[in-house]
């Protein structure tokens, strides 16, 4: 944490950038990091808590080894995005927003990934998959199940 905070000024505008960095480093925002961030920026812990729960990007609990993001944007919606998410939920036996018990997968949805022309789109750990169909879901997840 000390090393991370050294890169940021003490201006309040750094709060979101700091949270992004922490999440990149740890995969989530460890609750014990909040007092340190608060101390660095000289704002209250509850204010930081309010900010980090306001934005969807941040998670206070550890996330899975593989992050699966399904696009729920309009273009993907009309091409079958909801069916893809349903199938992911069924296959992984978790609801969107949750992490599997073995910690291997976190399933998330997103409003749009900006690849609307080649939907439905799914991203796994930053890798984009285009033209996904319900049929392809099982095979796609299998790739990551063994890892």
């Amino acid at each position, binding site marked *: 944490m000390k090393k991370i905070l050294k890169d940021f000024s003490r201006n309040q*505008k750094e709060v979101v*950038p700091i949270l992004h960095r922490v999440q990149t480093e740890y995969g989530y925002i460890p609750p014990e990091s909040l007092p340190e961030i608060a101390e660095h920026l000289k704002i209250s812990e509850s204010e930081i808590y309010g*900010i980090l729960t*306001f934005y969807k990007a941040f998670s206070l609990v550890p996330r899975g080894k593989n992050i699966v993001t399904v696009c729920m944007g*309009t273009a993907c919606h009309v091409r079958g995005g909801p069916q893809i998410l349903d199938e992911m939920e069924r296959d992984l036996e978790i609801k969107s927003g949750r992490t599997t018990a073995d910690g291997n997968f976190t399933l998330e949805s997103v409003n*749009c990934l*900006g690849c609307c*022309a080649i939907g439905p789109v799914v991203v796994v750990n930053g890798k984009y998959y285009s033209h996904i169909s319900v049929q392809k879901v*099982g095979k796609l997840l299998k790739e990551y199940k063994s890892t």
Partner: protein
Amino acid sequence: MKRITHPEQLITWKNRLLERHAPGKKTVVISSGTCGQASGSLQIIEAFKKELEKRNLKDEINLKMTGCHGFCEMEPNVLILPNGVFYKNLKTEDVPQIIEETLLNGKVISSLCYASPKSDEIISDCEAIPFYQKQKRLLTADNVRLDPTSIDDYIICNGYQALAKVFFNMTGEEVVEEIKKSGLRGRGGGGFLTGLKWELCRKEDGEPKYIICNADEGDPGAYMDRSLLEGNPHSVLEGMIIGAYAIGAAEGYIYVRMEYPLAVKHVTRALAEARTYGFLGKAILGSEFEFDIHIVQGAGAFVSGEETSLMASIEGRRAFPRQRPPFPAQSGLWGKPTNINNVETWANVPLIINKGADWYAGIGTKKSKGTKIFSLVGKINNTGLVEVPMGITLREIIYDIGGGIKDGKKFKAVQTGGPSGGCIPADQIDLPIDYDSLTKAGSIMGSGGMIVMDEDTCMVDIARYFLEFTQEESCGKCVPCRVGTRQMVDILTRICRGEGKEDDIGKLEELARTVKAASLCGLGQTAPNPVLTTIRYFRDEYEVHIKEKSCPALACKDLIVYDIDPKKCVGCLLCKKSCPAEAISGERKKVHIIDQEKCTKCGTCLDVCPPKIRAVSKYTGKKMDKILKKRQAKRDNP
């Protein structure tokens, strides 16, 4: 490279670059924005690199990785220069053949070319493809010419000439006048006159002044801002620096949504290069003017695209909107005068300065000038980003550029303006597209998303989708938006489930009026639009859902069943094997049966059943009840 401190130096440098640059040289241009990379463009580039190395052709043939060329449906695709051949949907295996036949022997490989879906005619010349022909690519033209990670490429394409012109030949006031005269209106949704907005901010006394580039691009289905930032970041920066000069701003911010990592990467690099060349920082172009730009990443909140929320977010607070006035020009970032424009708005600025306001005002309609980039997506053949002059008709966009509806289906509606917009029905196909005509039709221009819908799209479901979206994204600060949208979602969900009540449409209209009138920010004020336009144009679809408990588009899951016709099924096992829910039983050469209890209605069986057999169908309403009864009787009485 040392700093450029005078316009003449910029010209000299450009000429030096041109000398080094052999225009006739064989070049493979690879469209490699996020969508290209998602489709495999990076692997294609690797394959070209390897193959050129193997054949010792590295010095003879150039490889150029650019941003998105717009024809995303055809990705990965390449453009072969100088002859302009366009190859689409490439696989790495195609690469050796392209080098051998096209690059070395000048022959066109017709199997890799675009073929007209109507006539099967092979079109090899990129510019002759109908998708490009009716477009007017001004802002997106250079996306095929430049490597977005190279400022020199931008300079070759006349980059930063507008900046030089402004700094040495125009006062800030004259720049504002020029933008006003051009008639440019904001591309972020509202369509406010850009020059007028600049003037308001310029006239304010407070110091320092800020400018912001809104790259939050929250409308799902729209991605022109991503494409501009990824494919031509310097054009946006140049626009911002000109704006800063005109307004007298000292600092700028680009607020990019976190879902756009490649855009962040390219902009970050562009900023660093622009600083090295002296286009940003102290003494820009050797003048006394000082200005710099910072990049800020969003954190996944739709409301942060609203200008007052966005500023709260930059300041490190929750992205709550606030009442206007005061407008950002009076009290913006940290209470100082601030001018905020959308990415595409900024990208128009260098163009106007270079070519003149009169030229610009000659494009488009009376009150909507210039071009607009639309993302043409959904159920259409040629999905992609299209740049067209304002005033073009919907028909030209959908049929001439878009190549019509996918799979020969019927065009039903097009959704514009995202969650704040509405659905325009098929019978308004000759509507000329500009700010005012879209508003009159009950929708808005918004940021330029155009989601095409066919007969399989249920309009009640679309209304429910958007209300769920705004409900989820409502920041909760004001009650009408928070509670009103919740109630609307509940009613719409009920209707989609077949539990609608007689007076639901009336209730929806009433709630819509309240939410529109009483919400604090644009999110709530426009949230009911998708419901209002679908009721206006597709009321019968609502009524059928409510009265007959059926979904005419066969889309609402709770109102349909999938069924296999025993007379047609040949027992090929295809559907049984691909059903992810294992809901289909049956043996080879025997009729297959769907277990309705297990069926998740994903539609896979319908997709895989061979077109010659077509044994799988969907049913709703009375037909559905009849089929279910028939199958039940069969089971009871085999």
